[in-house]
C-alpha cells in the first residue's frame, strides 16, 4: 500500500495530457471517467502480470499523480492494443492517453525503441537500408519473379508517375525477408496491378506511433503525403503490417494539417477488391493444413479489417479455425505498442502477455497461424519458442495467396 502525498499532486496534469493528445475523437470525453472499471475488465493482461491496470492509470491521471504516472511501468508495459478503450462506456481513449504520456513529457522509451525512430528519421527507414541496397533487392526479386513465373514483363515498378497506388514496404521484407517481396510482387503481377514503389520514402513502419513523439510522427507522415503527390498516385497501400496500417490511415488526420485526405489501404483490402473483381483466382486445395488467424490489434480493432482477413482466408485455405476470442475482441499478441523494441526490461511483460496467445493457439489445434502483421509475426514466433508450441509456424496472407494462384487462369 503506497501513500498519496497531497502536496505532490499536480492538479493540471490531466488537463495537460488531454490537451496534448492526438486524437480524432472528442477529447472532452477523456475527462469523463466514472471509474467503473470496464477498462480493467477489458484489459486481457490485468491479473496476468503486474502493472496492467488501466483504471489505476486513469485514477492517477485524474488525481494529478504526475511523478507516479511518468515513472510507472504501466505506460511502457501497455501494448496500446485498445481493448480497454473499446470497453469504455464514456469514450475515454486510454491508449491515446498512454501514447501522449509516453511522448510529451521528456521520457526516453526503454530498449532501442528510440533508436528505431531515430534511424527512420535520419535514413528514411528504420533499418538504415541504403537506397542502393533497397533498389538492388527489388531488382533481384524482380529477376527471381520473372524466372518463377516465366514472364519477362513481371515487374516491380519504381517511381512510376500516375500509377494507381504507391506501395510501402516493411524494411524487414527488404533487408531480411526478400521472399516476401517476391511473393507480394507475384500477386501484383497476377492481378495486373498498376502499382509503384518509391525510391525515396518507402518504409511503411512508424515507431513514432509507439514512442508518442508527435513531432517525429509528423516528419514521417509528411514524407508519404509528399510521395503521394510527387508520384501522382490515387492511393497509398501498406504491406501486411498492423501498426503501419493504423499509423498511415489514422496518422495524416492527426499529424498533418493539409493534404491529409489521400486514401490509405492495407494490402489486405486490395486482396478483397481483387477477389471481388475476379482478378485473384486461387486454389484453396493448395492450403489444406488447419490454420487459425491472429487478429492484429492495429488493423482489426482500430481499423476494422477483421472481416477482410477472414474473407481472404476463406477463399484461400480449406480448414480455417477461429481462435477465441477473435476479431475486435481478440487478445493482443503481447508485442504491440513498441514492446518488441523495448529490450530486456520489458521482455518479462512481453512473455507473460504471450501466455494468453499461446493458450489460444493451442486450443485451436492448428500448427499454422495466419498473421498479416510483421510485429505480431515476431512476437508469435518468440512465444512459439518460449512456450514450446512444437511445430507451430506463422505465415503472412500473401504467402498463402501467392502459393495458391491458379496460373492457367491469370486474367
Amino acid at each position, binding site marked *: 500500500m503506497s501513500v498519496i502525498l497531497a502536496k505532490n499532486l499536480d492538479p493540471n496534469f490531466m488537463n495537460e495530457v488531454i490537451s496534448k493528445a492526438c486524437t480524432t475523437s472528442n477529447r472532452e470525453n477523456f475527462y469523463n471517467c466514472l471509474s467503473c472499471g470496464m477498462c480493467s475488465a477489458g484489459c486481457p493482461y490485468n491479473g496476468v502480470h503486474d502493472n496492467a491496470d488501466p483504471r489505476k492509470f486513469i485514477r492517477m491521471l485524474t488525481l494529478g499523480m504526475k511523478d507516479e504516472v511518468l515513472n510507472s511501468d504501466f505506460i511502457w508495459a501497455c501494448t496500446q492494443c485498445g481493448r480497454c478503450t473499446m470497453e469504455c462506456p464514456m469514450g475515454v481513449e486510454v491508449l491515446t492517453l498512454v501514447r501522449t504520456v509516453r511522448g510529451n513529457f521528456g521520457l526516453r522509451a526503454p530498449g532501442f525503441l528510440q533508436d528505431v525512430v531515430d534511424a527512420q528519421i535520419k535514413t528514411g527507414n528504420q533499418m538504415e*537500408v541504403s537506397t542502393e541496397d533497397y533498389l538492388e533487392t527489388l531488382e533481384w526479386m524482380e529477376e527471381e519473379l520473372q524466372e518463377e513465373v516465366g514472364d519477362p514483363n513481371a515487374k516491380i515498378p519504381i517511381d512510376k508517375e500516375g500509377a494507381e497506388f504507391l506501395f510501402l514496404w516493411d*524494411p524487414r521484407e527488404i533487408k*531480411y525477408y*526478400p521472399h516476401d517481396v517476391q511473393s507480394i510482387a507475384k500477386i501484383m503481377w497476377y492481378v495486373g496491378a498498376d502499382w509503384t514503389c518509391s525510391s525515396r520514402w518507402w518504409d511503411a513502419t512508424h515507431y513514432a506511433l509507439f514512442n508518442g513523439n508527435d513531432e517525429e510522427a509528423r516528419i514521417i507522415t509528411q514524407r508519404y503525403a509528399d510521395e503521394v503527390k510527387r508520384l501522382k498516385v490515387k492511393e497509398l497501400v501498406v504491406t501486411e503490417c498492423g501498426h503501419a496500417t493504423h499509423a498511415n490511415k489514422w496518422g495524416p488526420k492527426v499529424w498533418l494539417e493539409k493534404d491529409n485526405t489521400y486514401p490509405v489501404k492495407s494490402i489486405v483490402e486490395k486482396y478483397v477488391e481483387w477477389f471481388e473483381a475476379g482478378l485473384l483466382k486461387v486454389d484453396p486445395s493448395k492450403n489444406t493444413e488447419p490454420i487459425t488467424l491472429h487478429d492484429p490489434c492495429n488493423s482489426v480493432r482500430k481499423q476494422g479489417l477483421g472481416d477482410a482477413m477472414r474473407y481472404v482466408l476463406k477463399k484461400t485455405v480449406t480448414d480455417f479455425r477461429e481462435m477465441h476470442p477473435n476479431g475486435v475482441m481478440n487478445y493482443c499478441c503481447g508485442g504491440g505498442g513498441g514492446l518488441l523494441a523495448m529490450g530486456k526490461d520489458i521482455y518479462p511483460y512481453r512473455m507473460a502477455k504471450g501466455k494468453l496467445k499461446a493458450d489460444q493457439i493451442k486450443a485451436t489445434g492448428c500448427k499454422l497461424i495466419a498473421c498479416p502483421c510483421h510485429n505480431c509475426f515476431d512476437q508469435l514466433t518468440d512465444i512459439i519458442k518460449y512456450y514450446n508450441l512444437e511445430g507451430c509456424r506463422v505465415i503472412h496472407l500473401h504467402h498463402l495467396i501467392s502459393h495458391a494462384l491458379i496460373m492457367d487462369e491469370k486474367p
Partner: protein
Amino acid sequence: MAFLEIGGKQIELDEDGFVVNPDEWTEEVAKAFAESEGIKELTEDHWKVIHYLRDYYKQFQVAPMVRKMCKQTGYSLKQIYELFPSGPAKGACKLAGLPKPTGCV
C-alpha cells in the same frame, strides 16, 4: 540474464538468446545454437555463411542485407533457408554471434 556455458566460460545472451558481445563468439557457440535452430549438423556450407556474416559485421557493425549475403556467398535464398530454417536474421545471424537486429525483427 541468460548465459551459455562453453568450456567453463560463460557467454552472455540477450532475452532472445542472441549473443550480447559478438567478440565472445567462438565456433562452439554456433555449434551450441545449431540444434535449437533446427540444424542437425553444421556443414562447410553453414560455416561459409557464418564466417561471411562475422567478417561483414566486423567491418560494418551491422548485419548485411540478405541480397549481399546471397550474392557474396554464392548461395540462393532457397539454399540459405535450407541451411538455416529459422531464416537469415533469426537463424544465420544468431549462429554467427551477431547481436539481435534492432527494428521490427
